């Protein structure tokens, strides 16, 4: 029973992924490109050698965390679109801490920066959670607004406080604050792979424990599945909403902090919200908000993005084809109800055949 349920859960994303690749292939054929060659290049360019693998893993690190953040709020029944803002705040917080305390011992400096970033992200999301719990303000609206407040506040802060005159970015953090160490660079042939990846994996495990083993995680799931029943059972629903949004923002903030320390080493003025915040939502949807699933979904998205770069290097196929594949996958996940209805038919037939399955239905 349980076994078949998880199998069924896997079927929808797998079909969606296959369908996305097929759509990509059809389009390439229509415009005269070779899909097999391109998919091969995509694969080699993302996972084919140790350097590409390093890049892919580095690129998936913040995706994992923004996806986890989205998943936590979503489990509590909220649509937290604030991932980009929370990620930005996390990035900003980590860089500010690292720039201000360069003389701290390495471990303290890194932990301090990560915590500072995560907390800023958490506070950013907490604002939306608080407004939602106590005033009923739609978290969709507030998180979108908070995204832009974060973007422009950080642009302002970078220009006026962090950057030297005439520059658009902060100075680089000291080397020891970086998550990108020589050891890992050597190991991955000078890729940008950094320790953040392992922090993200540990976080996935922690969140899995949180949902499946802790009291607070159980409350978040209960409230998300049925707020009225939770209220009736005595759960403090308002506090649970605030907690869920806080955890959600902490995760996205941590994603930003890791990217800041591991990938960018500084923070610059930017025109747009970081796409990793939005892609995290797509990753979470593809993974059906399952923490373990998020690792694989993030790997796929990251591999497509990194491998997509080499498509246009080795052939004249535009690398945007990858965006079409990604968009198609999300589209098919979105219409999963169609698949589920089709699968459910088959499934019911099989279930009825089991000796004890039919009676009580």
């Amino acid at each position: 029973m349980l076994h078949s349920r998880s199998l069924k859960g896997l079927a929808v994303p797998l079909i969606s992924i296959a369908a996305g690749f097929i759509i990509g292939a059809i389009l390439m054929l229509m415009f005269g490109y070779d899909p097999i060659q391109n998919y091969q290049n995509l694969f080699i360019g993302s996972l084919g050698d140790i350097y590409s693998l390093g890049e892919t893993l580095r690129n998936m690190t913040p995706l994992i965390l923004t996806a986890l953040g989205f998943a936590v709020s979503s489990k509590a029944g909220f649509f937290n679109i604030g991932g980009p803002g929370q990620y930005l705040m996390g990035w900003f917080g980590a860089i500010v801490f690292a720039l201000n305390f360069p003389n701290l011992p390495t471990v303290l400096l890194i932990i301090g920066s990560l915590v500072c970033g995560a907390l800023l992200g958490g506070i950013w999301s907490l604002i939306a959670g608080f407004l939602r719990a106590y005033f009923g303000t739609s978290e969709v609206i507030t998180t979108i607004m908070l995204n832009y407040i974060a973007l422009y506040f950080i642009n302002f802060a970078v220009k006026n406080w962090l950057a030297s005159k005439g520059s658009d970015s902060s100075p680089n953090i000291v080397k020891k604050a970086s998550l990108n160490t020589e050891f890992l660079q050597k190991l991955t042939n000078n890729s940008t792979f950094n320790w953040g990846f392992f922090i993200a994996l540990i976080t996935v495990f922690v969140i899995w424990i949180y949902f499946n083993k802790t009291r607070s995680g159980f409350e978040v799931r209960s409230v998300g599945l049925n707020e009225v029943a939770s209220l009736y059972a005595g759960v403090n629903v308002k506090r649970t909403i605030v907690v869920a949004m806080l955890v959600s923002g902490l995760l996205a903030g941590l994603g930003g902090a890791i990217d800041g320390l591991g990938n960018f080493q500084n923070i610059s003025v930017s025109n747009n919200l970081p796409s990793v915040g939005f892609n995290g939502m797509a990753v979470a949807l593809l993974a059906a908000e399952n923490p373990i699933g998020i690792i694989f979904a993030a790997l796929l998205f990251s591999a497509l993005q990194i491998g997509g770069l080499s498509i246009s290097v080795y052939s004249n196929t535009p690398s945007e084809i990858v965006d079409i594949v990604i968009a198609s996958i999300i589209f098919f996940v979105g219409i999963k109800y169609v698949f589920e209805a089709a699968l459910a038919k088959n499934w019911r037939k099989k279930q009825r055949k089991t000796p004890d399955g039919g009676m009580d239905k």
Partner: protein
Amino acid sequence: MENDIVQMKNITKIFGSYKANDNISLKLKKGEILALLGENGAGKSTLMGMLSGLLKPTSGEIIINGKPAKMENPREAKALGIGMVHQHFMLIPAFSVLENIILGDEPLKAGRIDYKKAAKDIEFLAGKYHLEIDLNAKVSDITVGMQQRVEIMKALYRKANVFIFDEPTAALTPQEISQLMKITHALSEEGKSIIFITHKLKEIKEVADRCVVIRMGKVIDSVRVAETKEAALAEMMVGHKVNFAIDKKEVNQEKDIFKIEKLSVEAHGQLKIKNLDLTVHSGEIVGVAGVDGNGQSELIEAVTGLRKCKTGTIMLNGKKIQHQSARKIAEAGISCIPEDRQNVGLILPLTISENLVLKSYYKKPISNKGFLNYKKINEDGRRMIKQFDIRSQSEKELVGDLSGGNQQKVVVAREISAQPDLLIAANPTRGVDIGAIEYIHEKIMEQRNAGHGVLLVSFELEEILKLSDRVVVMHEGQIVGEIDPRDTSSEELGMLMAGKQQAEEMGEIS
């Protein structure tokens, strides 16, 4: 054979690989009232769905007026004279009664709807069949009983010869039920045939000529109602002997367990509970009867801490409990089987064992330093599944996959195992099958016999009269009367439920 108006021959309906109807044959004579008896999920609705054109049989034949009928949709069934009165009425609340009746079949005069002719036709029919309806009233303003009469009129207006009543008495007061019975007899006297779907035995005895019992998709028997006892019908429906008697012990009822004084509660800006007093003693089941919407839900919400009390006190064992959180009140010793188990009592996508700890997960030994002991949760789950006879595949099965009766058993198991001083049960057996009803009644009675208090809020008068030691009647947020269930009939109780004023009016009519 001449007067068989409907014949269903060897009907089988298969969904996927599930046989909902298995080789069912059924005959309906002109002017006959046929009861279709069966538990939830026995296949009654499927069978009637085929007769009314909603479903197509997998195999078998339907013969109407001697001619084989292949109905593709409900419209064709209507044209053949089949009129369905659904359990959930299909009326447009913003339209008047008249507009609802003629909708889809409007008489036209020069391209415009001829309301005068429609009204005249309908009034003629209303007089003939004792259907009291107010044609000009808006459907949203009329009572449930009148809405049902509108549905019947809709079918009559379309010249139906066969009426299918799907659980017609579920939402009616006793007065409305007896009015419906009169209408049913009037229809049959005029040569109309009626199929009466129900699982209430008393109604069958009262109204039907013949009764077809269906169990698990098969016809168990077809009997003449006058010659068959209720107990025999029940046994056929359930498949085993049903125990109607209930073990009511003499217990000490002196102690006040629960006391409400001068309680007022507001909801949506309206005063829903007005200055209400209520006491439950030890070892006592107090039944709260009343028509839906007279403040019962608000009363329960106020007592369980989900709604603020405006004024007044609520005391459990002499301690005030109002203005406390739902959790504090539950800890003080109040359990509640809520009316809506699917949306309030349970979280359907969680497992049985998770639902069983929904009110105790935060306490030791289940929760330890913020972590939940799932081993213990599942162990307890297995034990309670056994103890409360919850039919399931495992404790990790999702509650949403259980049948209604078993879902309710999960709620009952959780609430009773908390060993409450006061158990509130709101319509505890609504929509569950007879076997589960029997079981839930036993469990409630056990609470009482153990010397605890029970507050039973129910729209099923039979249930209230059967279980309660004392019955209070609620009307417009107040207790308007108290009766002794041993010497009160459901008719008398119904009068009180309708409120004094309305009761007087009804007296004039009948």
